[in-house]
């Protein structure tokens, strides 16, 4: 068995920094992207996340983690936020946050669920819902560098209107023969929909993902049941578990 063990770092404390909202993009009825300017941002790698901390007028504070959706090449840091029912932070970010507002942020955090062009391909990205965010940072990084590592994105959404970054993904795939974007819609399909329907299953993975023999680098991100299913299917299809990196969005990721 391979043991994952490496030398640890002795970094300075990650400081809380001030983030200023420069732009808010409506992605879907339940999802917005918040584009932030962070002074002295030291950069990140695609797939990493940040912690944000909101402070209310009465001093009440709450912290949450969000994946970075922007690539290191972009001047603004993008966080893509899905409204979680009964949540505390996400409804505020979706409903109340305005351009010009500020809050605290620290990061980047996490060094495992990460891909850079230097890592090469083939790249196999599996997204469920807003789990697309860190994977989008990877695809944008690949695109900004005109990198042609073979890549496939298999993206499961509830309905057509729930697909995040749809136009950008379409445009990306259109100009790039090395990239294949495949959607599946689980709940509702528009009339004339010719794409896949229902949840990702083993047959769809076998048809879309690079075979195990090509040793693709696999990233799976989405709600827990999605990640559990997809990663189990991939192991059953012969992929080495250590090549499958996962990030699960728990139901309480509010």
């Amino acid at each position, binding site marked *: *068995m*391979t*043991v*994952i*063990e*490496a*030398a*640890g*770092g*002795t*970094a*300075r*404390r*990650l*400081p*809380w920094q*001030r983030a200023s909202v420069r732009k808010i993009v409506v992605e879907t009825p339940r999802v917005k992207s918040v584009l932030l300017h962070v002074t002295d941002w030291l950069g990140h790698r695609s797939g990493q996340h940040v*912690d944000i*901390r*909101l*402070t*209310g*007028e009465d001093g*009440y*504070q*709450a*912290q*949450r*983690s969000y994946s970075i959706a922007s690539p290191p090449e972009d001047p603004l840091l993008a966080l893509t936020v899905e409204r979680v029912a*009964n*949540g*505390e932070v996400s*409804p*505020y970010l979706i409903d*109340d*946050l305005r351009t010009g*507002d*500020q*809050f*605290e942020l620290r990061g980047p*955090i*996490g*060094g*495992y*669920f990460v891909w850079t062009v230097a890592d090469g391909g083939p790249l196999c990205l599996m997204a469920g819902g807003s789990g697309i965010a860190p994977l989008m940072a990877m695809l944008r990084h690949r695109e900004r560098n005109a990198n042609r590592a073979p890549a496939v994105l298999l993206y499961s959404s509830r309905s057509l209107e729930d697909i995040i970054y749809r136009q950008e993904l379409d445009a990306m795939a259109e100009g790039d023969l090395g990239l294949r974007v495949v959607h599946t819609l689980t709940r509702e399909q528009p009339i004339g929909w010719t794409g896949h329907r229902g949840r990702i299953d083993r047959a769809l993975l076998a048809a879309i993902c690079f075979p195990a023999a090509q040793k693709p680098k696999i990233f799976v991100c989405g709600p*827990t049941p999605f990640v*559990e299913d997809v*990663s*189990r299917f991939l*192991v059953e299809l012969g992929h080495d*578990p*250590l090549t*499958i*990196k*996962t990030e*699960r969005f*728990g*139901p*309480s*990721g509010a």
Partner: protein
Amino acid sequence: MDETPISRGFKSRRRQQDPKGRVPPGQYVTTDFPVLSAGPTPQIKVADWTLALQAGGSLAGKWSWQAFEALPQTTLKTDIHCVTKWSKLDTTWQGVTFDDLLEAAGIPEPPLPYVMVHCYGGYTTNLPVADLIGGKAMIATRYDGLPILPAHGGPARLLVPHLYFWKSAKWVQRLRFMDKDQPGFWESFGYHIYGDPWKEQRYDGD
């Protein structure tokens, strides 16, 4: 940073106050049990499961599932705190304390001051022995009276509830004593070497 920016209109949406003194800084209470793992969930049959204790390169103890189940059982009701900000109160676990495991292996005193925990699937995490003894830690096999589900670390996971929950390694397979503290998996990727939630030791340097 000079002054904390205020988010206008942002306030607590908690229906009730979190019990005082039980929720570490930056955490919030959840009733869910979120799953966070770096890779696929290993599916381990108890028939194939073993647990080993390793000291100074030699095997100090090894148990099959059946032998492990015959060790003294302890039930622990405790709060748990995940570095991703959720805390869960009053969780009930059953298993074998680290003290009882040492006893069963015939090791009266821990031979070295640190332990690296090795897991099915390749995960590792490091702990001082002092945080494992004195009833502070167990190898848990049941949650809420039922076998622990694979996604939550079953058939057996470490439980060290006074540290952030990534230290409570899922799918535990082997405990190896070390003379020096060395970073495990998340500790090598920017997370704190020790992980005390009350000191908010989330990341390296905290």
